[in-house]
């Protein structure tokens, strides 16, 4: 922890306070350099999505070192984040799936969904015979596999998408998330867009009624199940797939090209999203336009209050958001395999934050 001078100063202050009595409080952190622009000891509390927790922790830590503003984030899940934000028990919320109109209306004042990073969902599978050749799917085929309509790997529709690939004459075992998650939200959002039958029968949400398959708990649960069963297919978070080097299928995007999940393709998807000037950023970028867009991509958002209801804490979170949009913090995101926001979107967010 020696690389965190401010935190050590603060801890030292605490230690001194503990030894020396009440005359020396934790306020001694205010002497740390760089804290001049903010009142010392300001602490914000936020809660929500687990998916961006690694990058948020990194950001909040770096931000505290630079400015002295401490932000305490509890990764309790998007649902809990939205609830606590609506109840006003936290200063900001965080979510992988946008709030519904009903929920937005229930909040006093206005709500802004601020995109922070991009995530993506990959289809991973276990077909040892394939080696490193990535499989190719289009949305409808993927939907039909998860609907249980395509049950064999040598189904003509899969063969047609993968000419020259030797697919085994095996049953497909579908693996999905059993716990409610933003990953499931994005994946089912995509399937709902490409398959009318999926939209009618299943729909999209953080947990849905799966027509077929086994449920694994968390990315790791799905991954283990897929790794252990030949002929299985599942979906996991892109960051998780990258850091564990899982096979990932190329997916055909709206423009008809097969796209591998990469940060570049995910960013292209964000650029392909349509943002009206007065947008509140509740925009789905699954199946986005653009020749290079990876189709199963999504934002993750911070929820903040705008409009009339503005407290000093709201100003502080705005200051953080402005900091987050700078190139340095966005690079940190890429280091952790999160998709950095495209430049045009950063400009748009800056404008919206300034205007509201």
């Amino acid at each position: 922890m020696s690389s965190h001078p401010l935190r050590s100063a603060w801890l030292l202050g605490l230690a001194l306070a503990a030894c020396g009595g009440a005359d020396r409080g934790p306020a001694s952190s205010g002497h740390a350099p760089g804290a001049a622009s903010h009142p010392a000891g300001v602490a914000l509390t936020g809660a929500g999505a687990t998916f961006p927790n690694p990058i948020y922790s990194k950001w909040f830590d770096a931000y505290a070192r630079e400015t002295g503003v401490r932000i305490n984030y509890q990764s309790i899940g998007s649902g809990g984040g939205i609830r606590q934000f609506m109840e006003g028990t936290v200063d900001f919320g965080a979510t992988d799936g946008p709030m519904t109109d009903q929920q937005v209306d229930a909040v006093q004042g206005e709500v802004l969904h601020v995109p922070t990073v991009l995530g993506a969902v990959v289809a991973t599978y276990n077909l040892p015979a394939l080696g490193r050749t990535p499989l190719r799917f289009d949305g409808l085929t993927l939907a039909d596999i998860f609907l249980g309509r395509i049950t064999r790997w040598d189904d003509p529709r899969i063969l047609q998408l993968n000419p020259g690939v030797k697919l085994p004459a095996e049953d497909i075992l579908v693996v999905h998330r059993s716990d409610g998650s933003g990953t499931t939200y994005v994946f089912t959002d995509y399937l709902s867009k490409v398959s009318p039958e999926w939209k009618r029968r299943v729909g999209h949400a953080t947990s849905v009624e799966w027509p077929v398959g086994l449920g694994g708990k968390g990315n790791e649960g799905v991954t283990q199940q897929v790794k252990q069963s030949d002929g299985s297919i599942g979906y996991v978070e892109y960051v998780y797939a990258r850091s564990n080097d899982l096979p990932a299928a190329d997916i055909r995007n709206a423009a008809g090209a097969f796209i591998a999940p990469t940060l570049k393709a995910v960013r292209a998807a964000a650029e392909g999203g349509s943002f009206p000037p007065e947008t509140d950023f509740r925009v789905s970028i699954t199946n986005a336009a653009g020749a290079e867009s990876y189709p199963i991509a999504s934002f993750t958002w911070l929820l903040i209050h705008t409009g009339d209801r503005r407290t000093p804490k709201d100003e502080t979170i705005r200051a953080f958001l402005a900091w987050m949009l700078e190139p340095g913090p966005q690079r940190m995101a890429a280091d952790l395999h999160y998709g950095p926001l495209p430049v045009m979107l950063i400009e748009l967010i800056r404008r919206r934050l300034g205007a509201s």
Partner: protein
Amino acid sequence: MTALTERDVAREAPAPDQPSLERSSYSDQVFKGLLTLAALVIPVLLSFLVFELWEGARLAIAKFGLDFVTTSVWDPVAEQFGAFPLIFGTLISSLIALVIAVPLSLGVAIYLTEFAPKVIRQPVAFLISLLAAIPSVVYGLWGIFVLIPILRKSVFPLLRDVFGFLPLFQGPIYGPSMLAAGIILAIMVMPFVMSVSREVLTAVPNTQREASLALGATRWEAVITTVVPYARSGIMGAVILGLGRALGETMAVTMLIGNRHEIAASLFAPGYTMAAAIANEFTEAVGDMHLSALAYVAFLLFVVTVLVNAGARLLIWRVARGSGVGSKAL
């Protein structure tokens, strides 16, 4: 801070200028008050719990009523909920656990109290109690990485080959399944059943054994005809303790059961339990009805636990009328 040792107390007690009787009656009052307060905390906490669950579940109770218990749809998108597969899964996985764990742990307990050489009694009992200290997520991970591969590659195919004529052992083998969850539960429940049964068996008076042996019984006959029947109510108490643990276990079960909201005849098929569903969906549940349905499930889990425990207790009373070790304690 100076600790009062027993010797200090003994030295102080007979001091002539402090009438010890009066002082102790005052401290008795305080002590009694404190204990009463402590005892009251439990029922108060329990009623708060029931009240909160009922409050949380009201929306779902109003919409689904008792159909919730008998229907099988679980569709958060359409906000249609039914908990039958969850109740079924909870009861079946616990039943499997007991079927495996009870004979095993009873055997161990009998061996340790009646047959084992003195040197190994304590070490073995200690090792088994150690199983109880392992966190359930560790059981779950061990289940995923070690148990499931073994079950899928050797145990399940063997069961299917031998008992395949029963619907219980038919169908495709995925690994995560009702049976896998039951087996991990059995391992988790065993230390509880074992240690309590061992205590109970140890408490059987030696005169009982001696009388039986004097009448010409072998060691084996003495155990089966005298010791175990004498301790039966205590042993059943041990089983109930294990059952309670099995019904409520969450993490290890959800990692191994496959989490499929469905009822299947085969034990190889995935299932779901009430506790697992709550743990899985609560954090990300956004809709009010979804949350309420989960609270309803929690309420039902509470009801099921109370019913199962009450039923088992009733059984003990009927069995244990008369004498026996542990019948009074239960």
